[in-house]
């Protein structure tokens, strides 16, 4: 009898070309996704005079610098977008250009177009590539040197991470989302808590999540230090993918389902590390500091650095100084200047529906931007009437891109301004120099927009379906 294997074991095995004596493995890459930020990788390839090894497995999309509002494009941004187009053309790579009907954030369009599938290895020069693991894929972010290596060889050298399972038992309460699950575990284990591990998310609360919810959970794995996060594929996965543009068709689809059904971890498979959490214990979470680990339930108060665990006091003090917050202040009630809904973390249709559910028929007290994760989601949200709910509430409805999550396209939070944001990083300067970011779920962002301060969304959801 063969040894029971984890999902990670199976994915790793299926992509291993060879393993060196030093245990470094050469892995085959099924999908390589590139964006404007990949210009360093292309430059390296060009410097070597090489061509892309597998143009049919390489897909380019404009997202990081994509303008989301009409107006004149800064020359620098235009240049970045043009460079990606030129590289895609020179190497014969499919390009989802700025005004393409299928343009969007790389980690949103991959799944949406069925480029992301269970059992594949997916790489991209972006740390949130872990998102695609939600389908039971081996997906991780790489740097520019590795981007160049994948472009040139369609392979990547990698040491196998240790296997970690985070099990969420129980049921999520009303108004609590997978974003809260993610921030909850990161606060508990730390921003480097899963360092060196690949996480498999399991348990009833994970099984009950939609694909959108699973993607949010896997997306944030990197914020807890794990380069990969994954969920075993199941019927929810298959139903999401069937009929998508690049997903397998007819006989291939049937064969794929057979292969995918064998992917989940075997019952007795051993993990190097196990954490078990109860989903019913999780309240809506917000961050108060400058690391995703600085997260607490909205019912809490700003923590006191003098009571910090050893070695953390200085870091907490610096975080509170940057965030201009005083210890002991109730989180519910901290005034915000603006809100942002979007990003590869929470810019999908379900995220927009959740925010709209809170906003419907209400007016916002602070301005805000809503940037859908893709052009397709934008159209869908307009058809469903969500866009109208946002604009009637007083928010700006924009085009899709990474937008205010990273500020590369000019959508920035001004210095000293406080933003309730559905994004992934509350790092100093992330949304703009001096910007103060509070991370939370899209429903919580909607709640903050209505009251003008960090707010527990749950009472606002009463009587709403």
């Amino acid at each position, binding site marked *: 009898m063969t040894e029971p294997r984890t999902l990670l074991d199976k994915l790793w095995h299926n992509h291993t070309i060879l393993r060196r004596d030093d245990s470094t493995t050469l892995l085959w890459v099924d999908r390589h996704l590139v964006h404007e930020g990949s210009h360093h990788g292309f430059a390296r390839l060009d410097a070597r005079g090489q061509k892309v090894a597998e143009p049919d497995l390489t897909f380019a999309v404009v997202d990081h610098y994509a303008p989301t509002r009409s107006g004149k494009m800064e020359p620098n941004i235009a240049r970045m977008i043009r460079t990606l187009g030129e590289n895609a053309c020179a190497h014969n790579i499919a390009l989802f250009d700025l005004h393409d009907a299928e343009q969007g954030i790389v980690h949103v369009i991959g799944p949406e177009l069925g480029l992301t599938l269970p059992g594949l290895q997916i790489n991209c020069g972006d740390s949130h590539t872990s998102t695609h693991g939600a389908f039971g894929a081996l997906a991780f972010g790489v740097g*520019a040197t590795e981007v160049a290596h994948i472009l040139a*060889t369609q392979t990547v*050298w990698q040491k196998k991470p240790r296997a970690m399972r985070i099990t969420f038992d129980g049921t999520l309460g009303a108004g609590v989302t997978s974003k809260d699950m993610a921030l909850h575990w990161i606060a508990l284990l730390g921003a*480097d808590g899963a360092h060196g591990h690949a996480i498999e998310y399991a348990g009833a609360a994970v099984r009950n999540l939609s694909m959108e919810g699973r993607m949010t959970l896997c997306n944030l794995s990197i914020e807890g230090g794990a380069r990969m996060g994954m969920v075993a594929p199941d019927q929810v996965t298959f139903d999401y993918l069937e009929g998508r543009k690049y997903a397998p068709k007819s006989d291939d689809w049937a064969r*794929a389902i057979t292969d995918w059904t064998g992917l989940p971890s075997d019952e007795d498979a051993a993990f190097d590390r196990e954490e078990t959490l109860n989903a019913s214990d999780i309240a809506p979470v917000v961050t108060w500091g400058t690391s995703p680990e600085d997260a607490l339930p909205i019912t809490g108060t700003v923590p006191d650095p003098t009571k910090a665990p050893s070695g953390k006091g*200085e870091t907490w003090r610096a975080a509170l100084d940057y965030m201009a917050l005083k210890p002991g202040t109730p989180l519910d009630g901290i005034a915000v200047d603006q809100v942002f809904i979007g990003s590869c973390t929470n810019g999908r249709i379900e995220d927009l529906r959740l925010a709209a559910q809170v906003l419907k028929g209400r007016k916002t007290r602070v301005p805000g931007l809503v940037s859908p994760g893709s052009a397709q989601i934008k159209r869908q949200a307009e058809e469903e009437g969500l866009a109208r709910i946002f604009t009637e509430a007083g928010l700006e409805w924009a085009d899709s891109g990474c937008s205010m999550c990273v500020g590369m396209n000019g959508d920035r939070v001004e210095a000293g301004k406080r933003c309730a944001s559905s994004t992934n990083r509350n790092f100093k300067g992330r949304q703009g120099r001096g910007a103060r970011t509070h991370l939370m779920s899209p429903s919580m962002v909607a709640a903050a927009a209505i009251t003008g301060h960090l707010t527990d969304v749950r009472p606002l959801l009463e009587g709403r379906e």
Partner: protein
Amino acid sequence: MSGWTTLDGLAAGLPAANIDTDQLIPARFMSTPRAEGYGDFLLNDVRQDNPDHVLNNVAAKVLVARRNFGSGSSREAAVYALVDFGVRAVFAPSFGDIFSANAVNNGLLPARLPEELVEELLNDLGESSAEAHVDLAKGMARIDGRDIQFDLDPVWREKLMNGWDDIDLTAQHADAITKFRGEGMARFGWARPAK
């Protein structure tokens, strides 16, 4: 990229945890071609906000920092900023996984040290600098007169010392890659993007 075995230079302490890559290089600088040099971008906003920041006064080759250094974005530009500034080694209790790989690919040593030792070194260094010597082959360093031993993955050690380019190494395995590709297409036909 050329490899290195030993280095001598100044060490400086950055007494903060989670120095993420957004701090190491703010996003707005990342459209710059590498040829223009990234050294000035290193910790740009942090250094501008604090004129007394140690890196405004010290051309450090060695940095000591708290846990989770280089966490966050996969931007290799964070490593370019360090390397172009002149930094060749960072000592910390832990590093962002992608950052470490990027560092080794650019001749920058990400060396892990126990948390207590890092605290002692930060204490020694304070806000000034001190002489440092790093020996990759021996896995030893001397910082401000204190001898330390650091853990380094043997593969990374070799890569840093030889300055190898992985694409050249991988080219030696071209046959194995071709074979794998062919077998994969036969076995997992569904894995190619449908048209």
